[in-house]
């Protein structure tokens, strides 16, 4: 699979962190528990991930365990892609 972290980072920076220094968003920056993504933003990110990587997430998968960092998102996408 292609790069996962790159497009997701780009999407987050453009959609939720306009004007922020891109280098400040690291792979382990807490997105949900750190308050960057609220509930609406999380759902928008889910839609982006589903469309960009062709996967389908379930309700119980939308949590900080799987979506809190770029690293966790990458693991989730790869895990779901492997099952497709």
């Amino acid at each position, binding site marked *: 699979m292609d790069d996962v972290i790159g497009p997701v980072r780009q999407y987050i920076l453009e959609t*939720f962190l306009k004007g922020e220094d891109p280098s400040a968003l690291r792979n382990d920056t807490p997105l949900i528990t750190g308050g960057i993504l609220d509930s609406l933003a999380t759902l928008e990110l889910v839609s982006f991930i589903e469309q960009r990587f062709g996967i389908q997430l379930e309700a119980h998968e939308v949590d900080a365990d799987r979506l809190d960092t770029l690293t966790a998102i990458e693991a989730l996408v790869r895990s779901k892609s492997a099952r497709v």
Partner: protein
Amino acid sequence: MSVGTAIPVEKDQAGSPTRTLEGTLRIVLTASQLVLLALVIREFELESRGLYHTLLFAGAGFVLQALLPIRLRMACFAAVSVAAIFLLFSMAGLWVIAIGLLFLGLGLLPVSASLRLALSLGLVLALGLAREGVLPVGMPGYIWPVVGGMFMFRVVLFLYSVKHEGPPRDIWATLGYLFMIPNAAFPFFPIVDYKTFIRQHYDAPESALYARGISWMTRGVIHLLLYRVIYHYVVVDPADIRGLGDVVQYCLQTYLLYLRVSGQFHLVVGLLHLFGFRLPETHHLYYLSSSFTELWRRINIYWKDFMMKVVYHPTFFAVRRIGNGRAILLSTAVVMLLTWALHGWQKYWIVGGNPFTASDSLFWSVLGVLVVLSAAGDLARARKRVAVNKGYDFRRAVGTVTVYLTMSILFTLWTSESPGSFFSILRMGANVDRRGILLLSGVVGLLLAVGGWNWGATDLRELKLRPLSLSMTLRHSALHASVLGGLVLLAQPPVKDALGSTTAGVIAHVSSSRLNQRDENLLTRGYYESLSSPNRLAGQLWEVRQSQPADWISLEQTTGWAFRNDFLVTELAPSQTIRFKQQDFSINSHGMHDKEYPLAKPPGTYRIAILGASPVMAPGVPDGTDFTALLERRLDSLAIPLGRHVEVLNFGVAGYSALQQAVQLEQKAILFQPDLVLLTSLPPDLAGLGLHFQYLLRRGISFPDPALRQAIQRAGLDSSSKSDAILRGVAALQDSLLGSSITRADSTTKDHGARAALVIIRLPEYAPSKERRMATVAGELGWPILDLSQPYGGQPEGEFRIADYDRHWNQRGNALMARALEAQLRAFADRLGLPPLWDTTAVHQPLRSGALP
């Protein structure tokens, strides 16, 4: 992904426990600050005594677990949590443990998730039947709030996790989750997420976790102290609302009282940090929210997360085929609807009774609509990240003002007896006064000034907890120790005294768990029995009432209470002995809590008739040991050598107002041919009048006095009026009501050749009242005023009350009152026409507590 697997350990972060000198020093510093926190809680009587003991116990548990390897710490936490339950509830804690284990067992059954859910619901139903007394299980009543607080939401998250993540591998983690310390000390507890609880255990550096834990606990203590200040100095009684200023103050205080919940939750989550649980904040600058969706995200964050997990996301994913925007709005609406229902569920388990009121339903309906509209606004706008402070934003400031004022009004609705009461309070705002304009302008100005800044902004690089160097730890500890140590010092008598009487008075109020004046009235006079809204989850009054034994019922619930269909409304049902407040309570054939007396006064006897409310009726002490009986024995023993007798007749009836005393005097007491009539006043006298008029109006009893009848009509009071509206109406009439009571009693006594006096009393730990309306009228009529409002002589007043949950006099209190009243009678002996019972040459003995000779 499975829950409860390996704890993520990073060498530089959570690694094995630091056994270095530096690590030991950190543990000692943290434990010392925890002890200071416990001392502040003890000195300021914050929350319950159980919290102080729980914190000390948790401190020992903290040190123990911090010295253990990480793999053993979860088990240690579970053991400490279970032990804390026994610490607070002794063997009754077995009920809590048994119910928790039952839920755990059902959740782990190797059956389908649906069947596990059904079985768990069956257990909940059985518990509900037991709570209602249908299933006689014999569980102490005080355990129910704890059971509700521990399991009624936590089990939902546990079952959800087992369904989606599989059974837990670490049973200790699950036990720790279910029985989490300090839940036993806080029935109203944040809904900690099961998965977060396990996943984030020691996933950050110990030094940062401990420092954050102490910070949040200190913040919690400060919230609780601010709550105290508001509770004692800002709270307005609805009955005292006269104009816009009072309305604004009342609305603001209802929202500000929420500080207690945020204080409690900060303490809880801070303590959990000391056991390694990196949990999110429970509240975040919620008073500065600039939209309703932002408020929803900031106030009780754990509730929001719970609803997102079990309601919002499942709903959204189920309906998103209708489009993301619509699905979001629909999911938000469902969340708000279920939030209303689940708050009722929570209240039922903690408070009991019917948790759903019209005010509650209206509150959640309006808030739900506002949040959905706000979510629609968010969707319509291109949202930006809010974690960066870009400077002052006027639109944000206006949003903050709007949300704050709206929430203040909504909280007023929520805590009102009914929507009708709420609107009657708001209507008083039509009386625009200078104070109201100034107060409103001040609040709006302050919010505009501070609300335009994004105070919650943080740097992206600061979002992750980093280890604290030793020097940072020392600075952090010194700061918190100085704040906490300063608070402990402030509560010490020599320091308080040195700060002057005004400051000492404020500190004394803030450092005491005593009820404010309004709640004291509610507790003692029972005026607001129906007004004790279950919405007041944080109410101190509710907690006091919770501690009452099951048989500590009101007189109205006994056979000793009878309703009359006339202006007196109530009386003691004659010729019986009932069990009341855990004592035999005998009522004679004339409906008096006293021995039998003939109507005709025996020759050579001086009769004193004492009328009044429950303090005179004297519940909770053995028959013959109340102050009227003690006074009679004392005075009679002095009179016998003179060939005379003295009788003191007790006409006290719970709740009797000044008006009822005057009518009771005419209809009953005067028939006993008293030489002296003593009416009593327990200032403020408004509460007694309010209760009396509430009964009159509710029972449709006509007012015999045409002028009074017209005044009641002018005040707009009728049988449908709510309690606080009645109280406000009566408050406007109280001067004339009290005046006519005394005048009426004066003419009755004079017509029968008796003398009269007014006795002013104050129950133990009852805030002194400056109100002397009855005394003023009585004084103008030439009555002696027997002031017994300061009888305790500086002694701890708590020693004179029946129980923590009941301020009526115990036997010592009654003995003290008998002596105090004797001293006053002696002082006014000539004016009262008393026989020469006392040797006037003897040196007057100072009052002492204790039994009379």
